[in-house]
C-alpha cells in the first residue's frame, strides 16, 4: 500500500488505506477507506448512499485496477446501470469487461416461509462466486437492511451478519455497506455494531429551502480523519466532497504584479497594482461602481494577454457589455478573441455547492488567470453565512492553488457599519478596496479607500472616484479643516480658494503700488533737498569768492595808499606791521 505523503507515522503503524477516488474524500480520510475492512455508509433516503458505493467501485475498477462486486438488494442490474449512466459511469461496459459484477438479490417476504433453523450460507456462496472469478478487491452491499425486511428471524440474521463481516475481512476485500439512517442510532437496524472500523454518515438537509448534502466521517478506527461535516455534491462527474481543511495554506506565491486598469489605483497599491494570484475584495454600497472597477480590471487584464473569467450573479453578460460601453469599455472584441468569458447565473438557481461546483468546472475548462465574481454577496442568498464563508474559502483556495488572481465584489448595505460576514470574508482576502458614498450638499459622491493590501506599501488616502463617459478616474479629495470634501463641494472649495488667492494677490499688488508711490515721493523730497543744498552751497562759494576779492582789493588799496603817502620807508614798514596786525584781528 502506497503511503500518502503527509503521514508522519511509520508505515508499519499506519493502517493501510484503500483510495476511493472520490474527490475530496481521500483527503479527509487521509488516503481512503480502511483496506480489507468493511465501511458503513449510512444516511437517509436520497442522500447518495448508492451513488457513493457505485463510485467507489467504478473508480476502483478504472483508476486503481481493483475489480469490484456490487450486491444490490434494492435495484436491479438494469436500473442501476441506467441510474449511474447519467453520471458518466459506464457500468455496463465495466461489467462486460469483467471489472465489475452486478448482482441483484431479490427477497420477497410473501414467497418465503420459515421453518426451523437456517443460515445465510447461500448469500456467502453467492458473494464468493461473484468475487472469485474476477478477483474482486472491493465489495458493495447495498442496502443490507433489506434482509431485515425479507427474513423474519432477526436473531439468526444478526448472527449471520456478524459472520458476514468477519468473512469479508478474512476475504481481504474492502467493503462498503450502506444502511438507512435510524431514528436514534446511526442505522435503522444497528448495523454499526458490526461494522466498527469506519462509519461515514451522509446527510441531506434543507435550510431555508436550500438543500445541502453533508458528509461526516463519524468513526475511523486507527486513523486520523477530518471530523467536520463537509458539504458534498453530486455533479455530473460523480460525488465530490469539498473539504476546507484539506487544502491547507501552502500555495505558491508570485511576486508578479497585475494592473488594476486604473492608473491612479495602481499608484495607490504601491505603484504597480495587485499581486498576481492574490485575492481582492471590493466592497461597496449599491451604485458605488463595484462592477465598473471589476470591469476595468477585466479589460486591462484581457488586453494584456490574461484569460479572464467573469462570473456574474446580478446582470446578464449582454447587459454588462452594454453598460460598460457607456464608460468606454469594449468587451466584444475581447470575447471574440477568447480572452474574456462571462458566466452568468441567478444565485437562487441552485444551492451553494452546486454553484461552487459549476464555478470549479468553468475554471477548469477555461483555465483563466483572472477571475471575477460579481457579487459574491449574492451567493449569500443561496446559503447561510457560515456556508458562504466556507464556500468562499474553498473557492479562494482553489484559485490560489492555480495562481489565479481573483476579484470579488461585495455589496454592503449602507452606512459605515460593515457586515459581519464581510469582516469574516475579508480575512481571506489579500487586498480590500472600499467604495463608499458620501452624501452632502444635495449630492452623492463616491470615494475609494484601500483598506488593506497585504505585502505592499499602499496608500492610506481617500480618493474621490469619478465615473464619466471617458471612464473611471481617481482624483485627490479635498482634505481641509472642514473635513473631506468631494464632488461639487470639492470644486466649490477649489473655486473659493482660487478667489481667495486672487484677492490676496490683488491686495498685495495694491500695497506694493502704494509703497512705490511713497517711495517716489520720498525720492522727490530727497531731490528737492539736494537742489536746495546745492543752491546753498553755490551761495556759500559765491560768498567766499566775494570775501577773497574784497581782501585782495583792500590790500591793493592799502598798498596804493602807502605808496601814495611816501612815508619814511623804514618807519613806515615798522608801523605798517602794526596796523596790519590790527586789521587782521
Amino acid at each position, binding site marked *: 500500500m502506497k503511503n500518502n505523503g503527509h503521514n508522519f507515522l511509520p508505515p508499519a503503524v499506519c493502517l493501510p488505506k484503500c483510495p476511493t477516488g472520490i474527490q475530496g474524500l481521500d483527503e479527509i480520510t487521509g488516503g481512503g477507506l480502511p483496506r480489507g475492512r468493511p465501511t458503513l455508509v449510512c444516511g437517509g433516503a436520497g442522500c447518495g448512499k448508492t451513488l457513493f458505493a457505485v463510485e467507489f467501485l467504478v473508480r476502483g475498477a478504472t483508476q486503481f485496477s481493483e475489480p469490484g462486486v456490487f450486491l444490490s438488494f434494492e435495484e436491479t442490474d438494469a436500473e442501476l446501470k441506467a441510474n449511474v449512466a447519467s453520471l458518466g459511469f459506464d457500468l455496463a461496459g465495466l461489467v462486460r469487461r469483467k471489472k465489475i459484477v452486478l448482482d441483484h438479490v431479490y427477497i420477497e417476504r410473501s414467497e*418465503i*416461509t*420459515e*421453518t*426451523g433453523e*437456517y443460515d445465510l450460507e447461500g*448469500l456467502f*456462496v*453467492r458473494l464468493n462466486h461473484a468475487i472469485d472469478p474476477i478477483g474482486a478487491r472491493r465489495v458493495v452491499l447495498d442496502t443490507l437492511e433489506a434482509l431485515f425486511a425479507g427474513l423474519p428471524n432477526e436473531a439468526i440474521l444478526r448472527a449471520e451478519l456478524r459472520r458476514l463481516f468477519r468473512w469479508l475481512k478474512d476475504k481481504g476485500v474492502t467493503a462498503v455497506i450502506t444502511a438507512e439512517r435510524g431514528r436514534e442510532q446511526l442505522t435503522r437496524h444497528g448495523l454499526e455494531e458490526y461494522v466498527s472500523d469506519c462509519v461515514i454518515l451522509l446527510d441531506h438537509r434543507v435550510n431555508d429551502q436550500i438543500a445541502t448534502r453533508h458528509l461526516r466521517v463519524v468513526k475511523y478506527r486507527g486513523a486520523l480523519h477530518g471530523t467536520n461535516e463537509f458539504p458534498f455534491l453530486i455533479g455530473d462527474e460523480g460525488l465530490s466532497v469539498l473539504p476546507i481543511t484539506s487544502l491547507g495554506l501552502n500555495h505558491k506565491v508570485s511576486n508578479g504584479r497585475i494592473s488594476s486598469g486604473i492608473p491612479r489605483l495602481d499608484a495607490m497599491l504601491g505603484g504597480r497594482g495587485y499581486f498576481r494570484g492574490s485575492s481582492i475584495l471590493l466592497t461597496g454600497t449599491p451604485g458605488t461602481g463595484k462592477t465598473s472597477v471589476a470591469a476595468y480590471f477585466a479589460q486591462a487584464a484581457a488586453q494584456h494577454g490574461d484569460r479572464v473569467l467573469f462570473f456574474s450573479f446580478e446582470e446578464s453578460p449582454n447587459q454588462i457589455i452594454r453598460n460598460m460601453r457607456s464608460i468606454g469599455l469594449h468587451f466584444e472584441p475581447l470575447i471574440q478573441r477568447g480572452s474574456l468569458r462571462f458566466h452568468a447565473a441567478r444565485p437562487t438557481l441552485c444551492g451553494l455547492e452546486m454553484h461552487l461546483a459549476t464555478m470549479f468546472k468553468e475554471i477548469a475548462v477555461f483555465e483563466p488567470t483572472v477571475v471575477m465574481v460579481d457579487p459574491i454577496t449574492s451567493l449569500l442568498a443561496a446559503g447561510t453565512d457560515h456556508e458562504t464563508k466556507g464556500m468562499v474559502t474553498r473557492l479562494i483556495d482553489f484559485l490560489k492553488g492555480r495562481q489565479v488572481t481573483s476579484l470579488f465584489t461585495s455589496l454592503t448595505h449602507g452606512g459605515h457599519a460593515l457586515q459581519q460576514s464581510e469582516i469574516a470574508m475579508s480575512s481571506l482576502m489579500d487586498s480590500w478596496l472600499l467604495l463608499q458614498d458620501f452624501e452632502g450638499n444635495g449630492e452623492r459622491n463616491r470615494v475609494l479607500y484601500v483598506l488593506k493590501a497585504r505585502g505592499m506599501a499602499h496608500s492610506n488616502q481617500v480618493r474621490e472616484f469619478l465615473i464619466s463617459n471617458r471612464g473611471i478616474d481617481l482624483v485627490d479629495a479635498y482634505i481641509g479643516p472642514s473635513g473631506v470634501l468631494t464632488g461639487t463641494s470639492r470644486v466649490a472649495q477649489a473655486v473659493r480658494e482660487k478667489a481667495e488667492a486672487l484677492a490676496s494677490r490683488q491686495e498685495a499688488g495694491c500695497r506694493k503700488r502704494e509703497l512705490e508711490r511713497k517711495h517716489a515721493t520720498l525720492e522727490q523730497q530727497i531731490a528737492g533737498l539736494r537742489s536746495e543744498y546745492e543752491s546753498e552751497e553755490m551761495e556759500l562759494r559765491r560768498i567766499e569768492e566775494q570775501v577773497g576779492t574784497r581782501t585782495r582789493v583792500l590790500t591793493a588799496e592799502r598798498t596804493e595808499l602807502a605808496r601814495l603817502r611816501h612815508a619814511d620807508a623804514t618807519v613806515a614798514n615798522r608801523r605798517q606791521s602794526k596796523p596790519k596786525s590790527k586789521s587782521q584781528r
Partner: protein
Amino acid sequence: MKTRTVKRLKSDSPRRSAKLWQLRLYVAGQTPKSLTAFSNLKEICEDHLKGRYRIEVLDLLEQPQLSKGDQILAIPTLVRKLPQPVRKIIGDLSSTERVLVGLDLRSAD
C-alpha cells in the same frame, strides 16, 4: 373463516391435485441442518404427496452459479418449482405444520 378457505381450495385449487410436484432443496455441503431438512422433506412428501413428487438436491458449494437463479440466500431453502407459483421455504423444515402451509398443502389458520 375456516370453511370459506377450505371451500376456495376445494373449488379452484389445482395444487393439491397437481400431477407432479417438483421440489428443489438447496444445501451447501452436508451440514447437519441440510441433512435434517432433507429427511424432514422426504417424510412430509411421503405422507402427503406419495408418488407425485420429485426432489432435486442442489449443493451450492458444487454449483454456486445456481444461487442466483432462484435467489437463494438462506440455507437450506426448499423451492417449489411446480405447481406454480414458486414458493420458498427456508429452514430445516422441522415444523411440519409450517411446511405444509408453506407448500400450500394446508391452509393457514
